[in-house]
């Protein structure tokens, strides 16, 4: 307590107090926040991609920021492991074919959007189910039911600079969905919209189909 009488001691003590109270506030706020993290959950279970350490996004200084997300694709396509995956990758052309294949029975092809709800509602592949692998409790039962009945499941997220689709694929594999029928569309919604393919805005089967994301 003697050090608390000196100016330096008082500041140190005050900083310690701020740290302790701040930490308590932070954990309490996370607990009550509807978007808070569940501390005990393993958000990256074994089998999901390791962190992509070289997710470099480089661009000239005068480039607009919103054009940069396309830049890492080339890098990430090289660094994202494709060997040893328990599912297959699929390209944009094949994804379009599957969407429009009229020979398949209804429900044979299931599209899963692995982005968060906000992004899903802004625009998704028509008929796709929303399934945020970081908040699986909400949509998982419904998605699991349709996936079990499906012959092929196409999962996508933003594009090759996100691994949420592989997270979703991992969760489906962990509950026994065969990897033989799981396809990950690496180009994701970014490539999809860049190719001027239709997107459905709002809820699934809302009927509001457009070619641009809101």
């Amino acid at each position, binding site marked *: 307590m003697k050090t*608390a009488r000196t100016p330096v001691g008082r*500041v140190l003590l005050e900083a310690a107090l701020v740290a302790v109270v701040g930490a308590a506030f932070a954990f309490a706020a996370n607990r009550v926040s509807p978007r808070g993290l569940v501390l005990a959950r393993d958000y990256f279970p074994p089998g999901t991609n390791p962190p992509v350490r070289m997710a470099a996004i480089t661009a000239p200084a005068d480039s607009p920021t919103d054009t940069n997300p396309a830049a890492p694709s080339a890098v990430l396509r090289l660094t994202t492991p494709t060997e040893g995956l328990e599912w297959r990758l699929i390209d944009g052309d094949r994804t379009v074919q599957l969407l429009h294949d009229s020979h398949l029975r209804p429900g044979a092809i299931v599209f899963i959007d692995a982005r968060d709800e906000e992004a899903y509602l802004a625009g998704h592949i028509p008929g796709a189910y929303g399934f945020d692998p970081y908040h699986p409790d909400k949509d998982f039962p419904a998605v699991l039911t349709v996936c079990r009945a499906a012959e092929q499941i196409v999962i996508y997220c933003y594009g090759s600079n996100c691994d949420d689709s592989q997270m979703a694929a991992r969760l489906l594999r962990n509950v026994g969905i065969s990897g033989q029928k799981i396809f990950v569309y690496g180009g994701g919604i970014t490539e999809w919209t860049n190719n001027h393919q239709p997107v459905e805005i709002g809820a699934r089967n809302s009927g509001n189909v457009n070619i641009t994301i809101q």
Partner: protein
Amino acid sequence: MTNHQPSWKRAGVNLFTVLARWLLGAAFVYLGLTKALHPVEFLKLMRQYDLTQDALLLNALSAALPWFELFCGLLLLAGVAVRGTALTLMLMLVPFTLLVWHRALLLQAAQHIPLCAVSFDCGCGNGQEFVCRKLSENLVFLGLSVWLLWGRGRQFSLRFSLMKPPSPPSGL
């Protein structure tokens, strides 16, 4: 020593200090809130640093940091425990600035580009940005924290010091 300063100079210093406190406080409220509203995104970005393999520790860091920043920002805005908060922010800023710098160097080496051309989302709350800008911003924040630690500019503070008795302002 500062008691011998002209009053206009003291007033200027005090005004600058109050503005610095509000600026730093507002910045941390904003940066903390943007992360706290998207905790999963922040978690993914924290994972990129490969700080720990322990899921609980990674979750705890990612869950607490944004709200902690928000808390510190609010303290500065209100003028509560200003010097202790400034020291806490300094202790946070130094390691995180070094981490961002380290990662930027890795990316620079991998891409063979100038350091200032490296741009990535460091999880700092501003989204993707060029690393030189981010490092400069952190240095400004560090400078402001050091200035606040000096203990001047107690105007508009609810409780500048938590420790009783509050030491008399040395510069006033």
